[in-house]
């Protein structure tokens, strides 16, 4: 077990956003969290990353309680909807950012970043500034920036929602490949049912602050509240 979330509760202005959320994620597993906009998916990820403080509950990584730790001490990387590349740094420096923070030797940084650029197909763009590359390439750089520090857990907050259909599909394929190559453990938040099924090894559904964890993808698809049945029926009847 890599991560264990116990009884997380969060209210904004007295209104509960997350109520008694508990879940477990195994090593090298991607857990999909499906839910409508504004249901608290991002808040849950921000609490795990340490950006938001929960009202109650605890988070354990490899059995260690990290609830009181600052975000920079947790080694959990959060990927936003937008790539949010640092505009003052080029592609190479954006990817190298996490390594520079750790004060790793220059030679090692150059070597590791070069390898990462190659694996993400960005070698030709290493000297470009963020405004000179496409949306898909930006998201790849954001992946590289997160993966290079080898975090035990990556939190993906609808990372492909701003991309066009084709690029989105390419990024989904890339993520699946990268997840295997880099042994990623991740929480993947999305409001797109197809994406949730494609990306996740296991499925969960967040509604009205409550998280439902499914034992299998079939259970998820059979459940009326997820909307999977409606989606299948739509495509069958078209």
């Amino acid at each position, binding site marked *: 077990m890599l991560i264990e979330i116990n009884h997380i509760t969060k209210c904004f202005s007295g209104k509960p956003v997350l109520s008694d959320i508990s879940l477990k994620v195994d090593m090298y597993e991607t857990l999909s969290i499906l839910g409508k906009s504004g249901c608290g998916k991002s808040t849950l990820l921000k609490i795990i990353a*340490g950006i938001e403080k929960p009202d109650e509950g605890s988070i354990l990584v490899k059995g260690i309680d990290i609830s009181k730790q600052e*975000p920079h001490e*947790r080694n*959990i990387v959060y990927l*936003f909807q937008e790539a949010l590349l640092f*505009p*003052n740094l080029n592609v190479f420096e954006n990817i190298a*950012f*996490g390594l520079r923070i750790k004060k790793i030797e220059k030679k090692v940084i150059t070597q590791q970043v070069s390898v990462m650029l190659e694996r993400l197909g960005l070698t030709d763009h290493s000297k470009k500034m963020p405004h000179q590359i496409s949306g898909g390439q930006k998201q790849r750089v954001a992946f590289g*920036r997160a993966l290079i520090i080898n975090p035990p857990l990556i939190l993906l907050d609808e990372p492909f929602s701003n991309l066009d259909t084709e690029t989105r599909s390419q990024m989904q394929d890339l993520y699946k490949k990268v997840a295997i190559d880099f042994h990623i453990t991740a929480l993947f938040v999305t409001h797109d049912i197809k994406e949730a099924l494609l990306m996740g090894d296991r499925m969960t559904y967040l509604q009205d602050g409550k998280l439902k964890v499914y034992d299998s993808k079939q259970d998820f698809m059979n459940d009326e509240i997820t909307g999977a049945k409606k989606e299948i029926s739509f495509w069958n009847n078209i």
Partner: protein
Amino acid sequence: MRIKFSLLFHAFMIVICIIPILILFALSFSKNWAFPAILADHFSPIAWQDLFSGGNDIRHSLLLSLLIALIVACTATTIGFFISKTIAYHNFRRQLLFLAYLPFVLSPVILALCLKFYFIKLSLAGTVSGVMIAQLIVAIPYSIIFFSGFWNQRVKAFADIVNTLGGTNMLALTKVLIPLAKPLLLICFFQCFLISWFEYGLTSVIGYGKIQTLPIKVYQFLIEANIFYAALSCCLLIMPPVLLLWINKSIFLKRLY
């Protein structure tokens, strides 16, 4: 046709900006100019020579104005940057930002008269530090309002990314937030510098006439009917805005062509 109009417009704007400055310069080099003569009897660089040799106290006022404006601009920009961040992410953002507008409700002279009592009690009236504090009462809220638009959820997300990548808040500030805000920091510094540089009301009331900054000097020369020294002071006074115009013009022309 459009290019011709644009050129004519630029020429007109340049004439409007340059002619008053030329007149000021001519006046600062003049001697014995009596009505109704259009030009002075003769021209002499004596006022400028006095400035460089220290023969008059304009040099002292120039250096004092520079010192006050630089300190006020640096302090207001720095403090405003950080306070605006706190306000931007605070639950009472609107109410706190409203407080920043209060110094601008009153004219500087009336504001100075309201504050004079406290400055006398604190032995700050008639001192350079007192004038600086008085100017900061206007410059810091200006800086807060100026930066309030910078802090948003996107900027916060940048800082959050640095944090989750293992960087401290200080690192997020130095490596990402300050580089992001750099152009705004420069503009705010210059604006605060100009606020302090041209400040008359607060300086004259809180400074008690003892703190002779350049705007105070200009008025003093005008009251004394010493138009040649007043022109010289004005020439020095308009140098920063002229520099700003020149920089803006360069950027503007670069964008245009």
